């Protein structure tokens, strides 16, 4: 029940945003993450973005794992 899906923010309007989830458009509330910008990915849970995904951290995690993989 605590599932949240990454969704790409396409446009903003007040406390709402239009997001794209694998090609499906949806209107969500950004009330919990007012800092969100167009082009951000957010974690979408029950109609709200609960967190802006830190894409640098995502890349950082993957980079470390790739280095580990190459070293092995």
């Amino acid at each position, binding site marked *: *029940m*605590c*599932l*949240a899906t*990454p969704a*790409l923010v396409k446009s903003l309007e007040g406390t709402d945003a239009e997001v794209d*989830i*694998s090609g499906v458009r949806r209107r969500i*509330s950004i*009330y*919990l*993450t*007012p800092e969100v910008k167009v082009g951000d*990915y957010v*974690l979408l*849970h*029950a*109609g*709200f973005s*609960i*967190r802006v*995904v*830190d*894409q640098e*951290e*995502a890349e*950082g*995690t*993957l980079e470390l*794992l*790739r280095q*580990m*993989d190459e070293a*092995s």
Partner: protein
Amino acid sequence: MKLVDEFRDVRLARSLTERIRQRSVRAARLMEFCGSHTVAIFKHGIRQLLPPGVEMMSGPGCPVCVTDNADIDKAIALAGLPDVILCSFGDMLKVPGSNSSLQQAKAEGADVRIVYSTMDALEIARRNPEKGVIFLGVGFETTIPTIAASVLAAEAGAIDNYHVFSLGKLCPPVMKALLDAGEVKIDGIICPGHVSAIIGSRPYEFIPRDYGIACVVSGFEPVDILLAVDMLIAQIEAGLPAVEIAYRRGVTPEGNQRAQQLMEQVFDRCPARWRGVGQVPQSGLRLKEKYRRFNAELAFPVEPGPTREPKGCRCGEVLRGVAKPTDCQLFRSVCTPERPVGPCMVSYEGACSSYYLYGDDSGE
């Protein structure tokens, strides 16, 4: 899908599995607290990838499963009132109470509506001013801020017929209750990813400090979970339990402070009843005095009568991590997802449902 597929990379999963095998010397029991993790672990066959010394067990992290029978009975009684619309997330409808379920109440004429968001429930209230609209507020910290937001929006929009039956529950207090009970022996906890997106990783710091148990916050893709297991095993092998984050793209030590502040603004902490665990201090949320007019329990007092647990169901023990679903005599023979006896089989994120759908430890 971006931010999903990369974390399903088979090659990375394989090298993580290899690293876990190399690292793991001591026997280690790990509990995944969250039901969404249980589903992911079973779906991706992660238990089978781990070395024999590493045992995984499911915890009580399914808000549907831990909702107390008495609260389900109350929700059903509320739904049965005239001029009331009860709005709920879909997962709650099939959960059996003592004598009925919301689904059955709906079939018998109660106005029960499935909503995807608290904002949908608020919209239903706005469109039906002559009705009392009650949102069944089940959820953990992930969901609670969305309930708080709906109460503030109801206040701002003067939508006075909107009410919340507050059954929100907090995870760190129940973790403490389980550890204090001392029934279940664990070396590490995979901490919930989206609860932690809200509360951050700091609230778990008492766990390594006071109980010597390793904690890693994990995401929900296979690479995320394997990375969390790898980090847990590293802590356990080094004998240095700590709180770490494997899900860095979604979780910081501080969490979402605005969401935390909204929770504080709208709710007070109170004791709450958890199925299987009993009453846990400071683990529930009650609307603050200022928002009492939105409190469904005050606006619509109901007395549903004595509760009855489903006979033979061992959900309580399953939720505490002291029995496996396969220890239950009803598992698979009587209790199935089509005809569930207890909430751990009803909820897709319940341990019994995961064992049924994806096979048990023996790989059946």
